[in-house]
């Protein structure tokens, strides 16, 4: 039996000040899925993704709260696993603000993806092995910015920086890529290219992708499955095609407009079948998730 790519059980998070960011969230994602995480701003999307990467610990409650990635525990009962750094090595994280180191070259930023598997003496001396350098160049080629490899990251446009961040996740040989609003700071054309890069990574390398978005049309176009959050609770988990404007209105009320911003959504221009051919359709995962 294959391990689940992501398993979240009864996850809750309360921030200081008492605001409940996540409320008893449970999700299961099969390897190779490409899943959208939608919701208005403040609905808990970022918080959920950051818990998956073990960047924050959940509330300390004992009732079976657990997060695991690829069958390995990231955190349980509000405590990060002692192995969390090693697990993060298998998780690529793409941030809304790219989070590259501006003064380092693009290729060095991509090579940062190899830190977790290289011996310390190499990383502390900036001595990356030849084959890792080649891997980094190949990844930059793949996302289409190889010509910028030796520029400072700050010289790139937002869309190019985001693709460099995706190249870093490729070089990491991540089994799971978590993308936190990767296109929220980008124009439509750059957004499309970034989403294409993520989709290509998912399709060609069978990498599981969980991407948070606040524009539903991108979820419809690139992700067969959508998980929808509202005020820290999962209100929908199923095929993206089921998210009609009527359904969104039912789920979010007046907030639905925020999710439909941009192009008007009409049912006949929703998911383009050509884009999602070849995706594994995780019927079992869906059924389980929908039931929980």
């Amino acid at each position, binding site marked *: 039996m294959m391990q689940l790519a992501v398993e979240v059980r009864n996850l809750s998070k309360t921030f200081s000040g008492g605001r409940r960011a996540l409320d008893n969230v449970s999700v299961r994602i099969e390897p190779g899925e490409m899943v959208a995480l939608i919701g208005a701003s403040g609905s808990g999307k970022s918080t959920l993704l950051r818990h998956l990467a073990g*960047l924050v610990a959940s509330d300390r409650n004992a009732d079976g709260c657990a997060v695991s990635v690829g069958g390995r525990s990231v955190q349980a009962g509000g405590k990060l696993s002692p192995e969390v750094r090693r697990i993060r090595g298998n998780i690529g994280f793409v941030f809304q603000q790219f989070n590259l180191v501006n003064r*380092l070259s693009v290729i060095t930023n991509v090579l940062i993806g190899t*830190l977790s598997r290289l011996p310390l003496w190499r990383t502390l001396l900036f001595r990356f092995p030849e084959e890792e350098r080649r891997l980094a160049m190949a990844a930059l080629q793949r996302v289409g910015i190889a010509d910028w490899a030796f520029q400072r990251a700050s010289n790139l446009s937002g869309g190019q920086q985001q693709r460099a961040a995706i190249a870093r996740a490729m070089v990491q040989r991540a089994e799971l890529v978590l993308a936190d609003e990767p296109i929220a700071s980008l124009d439509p054309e750059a957004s499309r290219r970034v989403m294409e890069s993520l989709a290509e990574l998912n399709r060609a390398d069978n990498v599981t992708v969980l991407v948070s978005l606040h524009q539903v049309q991108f979820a419809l176009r690139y992700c067969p499955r959508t998980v929808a959050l509202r005020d820290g609770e999962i209100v929908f988990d199923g095929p993206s095609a089921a998210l009609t404007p009527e359904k969104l209105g039912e789920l979010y009320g007046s907030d639905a407009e925020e999710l439909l911003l941009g192009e008007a959504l009409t049912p006949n221009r929703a998911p383009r079948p050509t884009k999602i051919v070849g995706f594994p359709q995780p019927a079992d995962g869906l059924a389980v998730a929908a039931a929980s």
Partner: protein
Amino acid sequence: MAPTPFFYPKAAGMAQTLDSLQVLSTRPPKSVRTSLGTVLLYGLGFAILAWSYSGADIRPWALIEDWGNMAVLGADFFPPDFAHWRYYLEEIIKTLQIAIWGTFLAIIFAIPFGLMAAENLSPIWLRQPVRRLMDALRAINEMVFAMLFVVAVGLGPFAGVLAIFIHTTGILAKLFSEAVEAIDPRPVEGIRATGANVLEEILYGVIPQVIPLWVSYSLYRFESNVRSATVVGMVGAGGIGVVLWEVIRGFYFAQTCAVMIMIIVTVSLIDLLSAWLRRRFL
């Protein structure tokens, strides 16, 4: 009533604009309203100056009464006597060498101490003791450290190097840690998310962000350490300061003048060089 006192855009209509002008005119101009506070502030400033007057023994008339003495002393300085310029030059070079090593050692030690004193990297049980230690190093002037090290390691340049090193470590560690506290945390989190360890987060995420400021601070300190190195010699810690102290004590004012001119030229050159380096690096 009571519209907000803003100027409305033209399109908003003349009536509204007039209305808001009237509101504005009912208030006193800003300068009138703040004048009382300004008067108090000036008064406080003068009070502090008056209070310090007698303690600092300010006697401007002494300058006039003793004008003759000053003229005689000034005349003794000229013409400067450069007869021993080779010796002065050797000692000035030794002074630079003291400043170079004092600053270099300080930079090496200020890096870990600066990181340990930074609020965003270091836990409080480590940060607070390191900060207090650095405060202590900064509070004591180089001259005092120089006197102590002359006793500990003997007369000579090494005492000067140690004095400058210890004092500068305190200063640079504080400046370095402030630079670290001002970094953008997001790239560091980006590196953490790849599974990197803390050392790698600092090396790849923190250092690249602070390096321009660190270089700039280090060069500033080198400049001011060259100046400090010229005086630590006065307590026996080597360099041109020793020479300066000898010629002043021996009333060789023409030679004193020559040494001072050479110090001025050296310090100016170092300032120019370091300003040029800073421009290159930033």
